[in-house]
């Protein structure tokens, strides 16, 4: 093909502000200039007196240069009010005919509900949803437990490759961030402890405070929240994306149970990794405690380590570790449940992922509070 050098004086490339003017008087007026989206308001203002129906009026358009669809629509409106359009260019004729041929209707008003009713509706919806969410969660926990037990009883159904992949994803890759968080939390508690206990001369007990709270509560809680944010969300998003691409249905059609290949390996993997991560977080928390002891209390690391057996007993460690697999189970179950609840669109993946994270962190904290009270009553 031949290429023609484009050297035309393009107004589009160097846009001049389009202008419009009205000449003539009485019922015989003429428009000159451009009638486009930029001059529409001006043109409407110029021809305001003709906005009511009437007869015997004419508008000459021979001076109109450029016209676009909004401009043509305005002229068609005038025409319907009895204004005769004269001197129309051939180019504009097609445009006006097109617009005249359209069946123009205004946009219908958006249906609106009074605010007080909206509030009542929202409360009702929220209550209804909460009930269904709770029922769904309980059902799904039951289904997952049943399939997991089933898989454990028939080890050939287990998928070691999938489990080890998830252990690596949720565990090994989370080590740096979990460790860092544990050190930071220990330092935060330590600083507060020293500041609060110093007036009573009891700042040495800061070590007890840090060690016990990290072992019993903070180690596992921080780890569980981190894992909920990291892995619970990724479970929901991974399964959710599979759901949008019909991959889950493809599994079902092939006679493969999605619970067994998608949910069970993730649950088992997280139940393995969260206790290990918690153990790591406990150690790092104690390291943070050692730093506080060194810099705030002037206690050497050796002295700190030697104090530990007096400060901690086996019960503290057990209390923390006991909670880890339970948190892990719920984080994994909630992540998978929301992933499987994704319907079609991509935005629902985002929505369900957010819900999964919020719900699992909420549940982790509620369960932790419950366990705190329980262990207190049991005297452990």
């Amino acid at each position, binding site marked *: *093909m031949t290429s*023609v050098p*484009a050297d035309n004086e393009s107004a589009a490339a160097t846009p001049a502000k389009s202008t419009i003017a009205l000449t003539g008087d009485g019922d015989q007026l003429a428009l000159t200039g451009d009638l486009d989206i930029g001059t529409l308001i001006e043109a409407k203002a110029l021809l305001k007196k003709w906005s009511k129906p009437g007869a015997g009026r004419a508008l000459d358009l021979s001076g109109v240069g450029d016209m676009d669809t909004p401009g043509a629509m305005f002229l068609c409106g005038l025409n319907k009010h009895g204004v005769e359009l004269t001197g129309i260019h051939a180019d504009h004729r097609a445009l006006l005919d097109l617009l005249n041929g359209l069946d123009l209707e205004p946009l219908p008003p958006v249906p609106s509900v009074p605010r007080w009713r909206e509030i009542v509706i929202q409360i009702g919806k929220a209550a209804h949803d909460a009930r269904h969410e709770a029922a769904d969660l309980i059902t799904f926990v039951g289904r997952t437990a049943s399939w997991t037990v089933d898989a454990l009883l028939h080890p050939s159904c287990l998928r070691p490759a999938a489990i080890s992949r998830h252990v690596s994803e949720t565990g090994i890759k989370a080590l740096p961030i979990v460790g860092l968080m544990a050190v930071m939390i220990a330092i935060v508690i330590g600083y507060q402890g020293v500041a609060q206990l110093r007036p009573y001369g009891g700042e040495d007990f800061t070590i007890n405070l840090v060690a016990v709270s990290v072992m019993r509560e903070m180690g596992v809680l921080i780890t569980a929240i981190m894992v909920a944010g990291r892995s619970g969300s990724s479970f929901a998003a991974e399964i959710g994306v599979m759901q949008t691409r019909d991959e889950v249905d493809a599994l079902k059609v092939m006679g493969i149970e999605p619970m067994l290949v998608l949910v069970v390996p993730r649950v088992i993997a997280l139940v393995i990794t969260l206790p290990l991560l918690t153990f790591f977080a406990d150690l790092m928390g104690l390291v943070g405690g050692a730093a506080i002891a060194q810099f705030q209390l002037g206690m050497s690391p050796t002295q700190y380590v030697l104090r530990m057996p007096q400060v901690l007993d086996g019960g503290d460690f057990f209390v923390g570790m006991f909670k880890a697999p339970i948190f892990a189970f719920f984080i994994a179950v909630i992540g998978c449940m929301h992933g499987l609840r994704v319907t079609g669109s991509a935005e629902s993946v985002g929505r369900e992922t957010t819900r999964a994270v919020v719900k699992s962190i909420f549940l982790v904290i509620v369960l932790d509070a419950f366990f705190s009270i329980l262990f207190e009553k049991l005297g452990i």
Partner: protein
Amino acid sequence: MTARTKARGEPILSARGIVNRFGKQLVHDKLSLDIMRGEIIGIAGGSGSGKSVLLKTLLGLHQPNAGEVLLNGEPVQSISATEKAALFGVLFQQGALFSSLTVAQNIMLPMREHTALPDEEQEEIAAMKLALSGLPAESGIKFPSALSGGMVKRAAFARALALDPEILFLDEPTSDLDPIAAGGIDDLIRKLNDSLGITVVVVTHDLTTLFTVCGRIAVLVDRKVTVDTADKLMRSDNPWIHEFFHGPRAEGAMKARKASHGN
């Protein structure tokens, strides 16, 4: 000043010596293409032949490794965002309607950004664009998720037309549509080209669209582009082009072309 008042038949958009490379893979090798004012040109090619990359290059969304795209003689990269919005309208393959806005708000968005029109006028224009695209006014207050595939394409059409662009780019406008809806889209393309004088660039696999709507067809083969009318391309001795225009599906589309040219 715009397409409507300018003579047809001069290049409005020219790609010169475009080279696109991804890693070691050469997609376009010194490709040149002139798009004439007021024409409907189809861009066809096999999967992976670089149709979408070419479209993005023409739009200035993708910077080619070499070569340039000229719009009215000016490099497309140097055109400001506001001017570009008034010059280009794009119908993306999936519609790309903003899901958080209603259809009417989607259409009004470019007007809201680039003009000073009051809300009433914007709504009036949005309703007109809907009618122009063949949608009822009620669909304006719906959200894109409540529309069928064909309606999404029409709504996206209406949004692409919001600022009366000079060039309309359509990426697979008839894919995922049933034949009736696809035929409706074909008619719409013709109608807009006839009455508004819009230059239309259609990227498509749909042979019926290529044969019945497009004046010229640009076929991407072997990293180059071959541009001609359907009749001449039918006689091409390039094996891929021959197969493309003489396969069993092409025969059916040719019948449609004869039928549409007959009446």
